[in-house]
């Protein structure tokens, strides 16, 4: 590669973040180079410093952060040695940024098209009318509906997937040399994600812009990037072109990341005569007057995992709220071992409450930050089983051992002193403390990094076998469903679209929505996106 091909070179980048104890390093000497027209994927778990590096590529550091050392050479000039004014001349015009949440990144006061034309007009690239004309053209290329008129809407009048496309168009407005994409599809549902991904890729390819694509999702980066750099805790692990990286990662950390998706829960057989633990029968429910569940039925058998899968607004969490008695159904019932459960939790007996326990998505809000683990787990034990004093403590220790945490080390800690995965384990132990028959797991791995999430899935699988637990697993993530489910319930807009054993639901013929859902989940194959799009085009979809 010749020197002139490189549009951006970062050397020895160090970035510090402010903490209570002073400045601590969050990016520890990262090098990076980007050629004209090339797309570099930055991948890593939370805390890897991906976004910080992405912003630094524009010479920008968020409040509370500072670039402490290194060079950022863009088109022959070191951004860090430039004046503020010089940096501003490059930002937006030559290096543009696409944020994770377009909804928050658009100013609510202005129309989309005015925000589009602001950059080109300010940087004297185009006149206002040229910019507006150009905006419509880009909106069209981004496959936005009604490209002539959509720009005249305000951000809150447009859907999330459309906003994400509009913000990408806005980043293109000055025809920059580089665009930084910072997790642009993370907040979207899978079926929307695939549309946005293809629109982004097309426009980047057509315009020949170089890009840095930041994501935590390996399958996404496989579709988008020419080269991939893996980061861990602010340092580089390895870098290679995408196909090599996917086929033959060198580092053990990268290999472990790649291996995550291979986990399979132990299949469990049940007798055909077994009665379900919990059965949801023809449940409909509404918030105010808005119907959110329509005639939903499914059964959960002992020692089985039912995965309820669907996108946002599908009603999967609402179903759980009805089952726990937080939301009264307008019709239908929930039965526990053939006994109808009172529809409001306050009317349920202690025994009934004990039988169905819950684990939440965010362990941060699910555990009381002011209580020690001794109390978080010890109180439900005492409350449900009456164990006190030594017996209680022994049980806490037993549970902590079960969730693979050292009792001596953790029993007197508070949630704030635990990592995300450890918190989630405590959430599991709290549910186990009640000695339940069934546990509802509401997106329990969604907020976790993949390696940690896999650990949680393995633990849940082990516990299921040891304790004969039934799980209802609420998730939007098809990979998780594949890994852990025995039965699958697919939901859309408050209705059950398809239900049955995993093998059945995941083999064709599918219901059209299940088909769409399954085919939209990115795979680790770099050609996946092309194949899917081609397939959809040829089937006239």
């Amino acid at each position, binding site marked *: 590669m010749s020197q002139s091909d490189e549009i951006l070179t970062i050397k020895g980048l160090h970035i510090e973040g402010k903490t*209570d104890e002073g400045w601590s390093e969050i990016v520890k000497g990262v090098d990076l180079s980007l050629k004209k027209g090339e797309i570099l994927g930055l991948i890593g778990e939370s805390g890897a410093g991906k976004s910080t590096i992405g912003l630094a590529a524009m010479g920008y550091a968020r409040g509370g952060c500072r670039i402490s050392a290194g060079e950022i050479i863009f088109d022959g000039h070191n951004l860090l040695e430039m004046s503020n004014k010089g940096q501003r001349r490059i930002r937006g015009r030559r290096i543009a940024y696409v944020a994770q949440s377009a909804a928050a990144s658009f100013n609510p006061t202005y129309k989309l098209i005015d925000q589009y034309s602001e950059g080109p007009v300010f940087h004297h690239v185009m006149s206002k009318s040229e910019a507006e004309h150009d905006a419509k053209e880009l909106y069209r290329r981004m496959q936005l509906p009604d490209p002539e008129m959509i720009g005249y809407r305000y951000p809150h009048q447009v859907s999330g997937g459309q906003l994400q496309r509009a913000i990408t168009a806005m980043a293109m407005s000055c025809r920059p040399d580089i665009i930084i994409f910072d997790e642009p599809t993370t907040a979207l549902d899978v079926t929307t994600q695939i549309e946005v991904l293809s629109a982004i890729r097309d426009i980047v390819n057509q315009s020949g812009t170089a890009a840095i694509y930041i994501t935590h999702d390996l399958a996404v980066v496989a579709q988008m990037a020419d080269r991939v750099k893996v980061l861990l805790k602010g340092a580089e692990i390895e870098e290679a072109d995408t196909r090599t990286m996917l086929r033959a990662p060198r580092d053990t950390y990268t290999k472990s990341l790649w291996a995550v998706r291979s986990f399979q829960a132990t299949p469990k057989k049940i007798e055909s005569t077994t009665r379900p633990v919990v059965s949801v029968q023809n449940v409909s429910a509404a918030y105010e007057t808005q119907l959110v569940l329509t005639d939903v039925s499914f059964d959960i058998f002992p020692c089985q995992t039912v995965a309820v899968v669907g996108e946002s607004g599908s009603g999967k969490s609402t179903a759980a709220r009805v089952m*726990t*008695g*937080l939301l009264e159904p307008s019709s239908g019932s929930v039965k526990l071992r053939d006994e109808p459960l009172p529809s409001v*939790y306050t009317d*349920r007996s*202690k025994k009934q*409450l004990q039988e169905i326990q*819950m684990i*939440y998505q*965010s362990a941060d*809000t*699910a*555990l*009381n*930050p*002011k*209580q020690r683990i001794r*109390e978080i787990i010890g*109180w*439900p034990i005492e*409350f*449900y089983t009456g164990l006190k004093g030594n017996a209680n403590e022994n049980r806490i220790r037993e549970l902590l051992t079960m969730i693979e945490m050292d009792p001596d080390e953790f029993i007197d800690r508070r949630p*704030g002193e635990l990592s995300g995965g450890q918190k989630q384990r405590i959430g599991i132990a*709290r549910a186990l403390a*009640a000695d339940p028959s069934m546990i509802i797991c509401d997106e329990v791995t969604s907020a976790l990094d993949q390696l940690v999430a896999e650990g949680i899935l393995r633990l849940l699988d082990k516990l299921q076998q040891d304790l004969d637990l039934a799980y209802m697993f609420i998730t939007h993530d098809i990979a998780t469903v594949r890994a852990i489910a025995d039965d699958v319930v697919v939901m859309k807009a408050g209705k059950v679209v398809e239900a049955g054993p995993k093998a059945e639901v995941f083999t064709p013929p599918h219901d059209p929505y299940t088909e769409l859902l399954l085919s939209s989940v990115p795979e680790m194959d770099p050609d996946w996106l092309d194949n899917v799009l081609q397939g959809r085009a040829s089937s006239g979809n």
Partner: protein
Amino acid sequence: MARNFLKILKTAPPSSVFGMVVIAIYILVAFFAPLLAPYSQTEIVDAEFMPPSAEYWLGTDNLGRDMLSRIVYGARNTVGIAFFTTILAFLVGTTLGIFTSIKGGWTDQILGRLVDTLMAIPSLIFKLLLLTVFGTTIINMVLIIALVDSTRVFRLARAVSMDIVVMEFIEAARLRGDGIWRLVTREILPNAAAPLAAEFGLRFCFVFLAISALSFLGLGIQPPLADWGSMVRDNASLIAFGEFTPLIPAIAIALLTIGVNFVVDWMLHRSSGLKD
């Protein structure tokens, strides 16, 4: 625990250290007022408006009582009454606020609307109105200020508690079958403690200033009790002649409020960070 507390104190900025020292001094003066004051608070020791001298360090007031002694006793009367009133307002406001945040539904709606309506009347005006009706005795004033300010405490306590009640650990506790007493004492209060403590400090300042203002207007703490607000009023005529001593009780009021505010500011700053 105690060592932790000391560690936190060491990180305090100068302004809040100043605040804590001021508060400590006021508490000491209030406790040991009879030992510190050279004369009694009601005794007429000399002629009116005597200038400061070796005998009367700050001179005498409009009735010939020792200014210094009255200022010392004022720490006990004014601050003590304000503190008691704040506790009263706080008990009522937080109890109802936390209770309605858990209960929700009708209780919350009705109480919320009532408080909104009461708060639509400017606080000082409402207090003056009620004082007219019930008469300007100390007990009435304490009860009236406690009532009016408890609406403000209610609003805040409800909001703080609401933020906690929507968290999933509360949902978990409810689904477990925990009673309301346990919900409040073990789940909500430990998490609400920091903002409520800050509100207590701020509320104390408001109550203290309100009592001082009422006393200054002649409608609060009544003679012969020594009180800073009324002392300013009694001796105000000297100020226009360039006499500074009548301002001392007012400065005593300001100093304590500034001290408390500095401490609260630091507390809020600390608790707004994610740490602990």
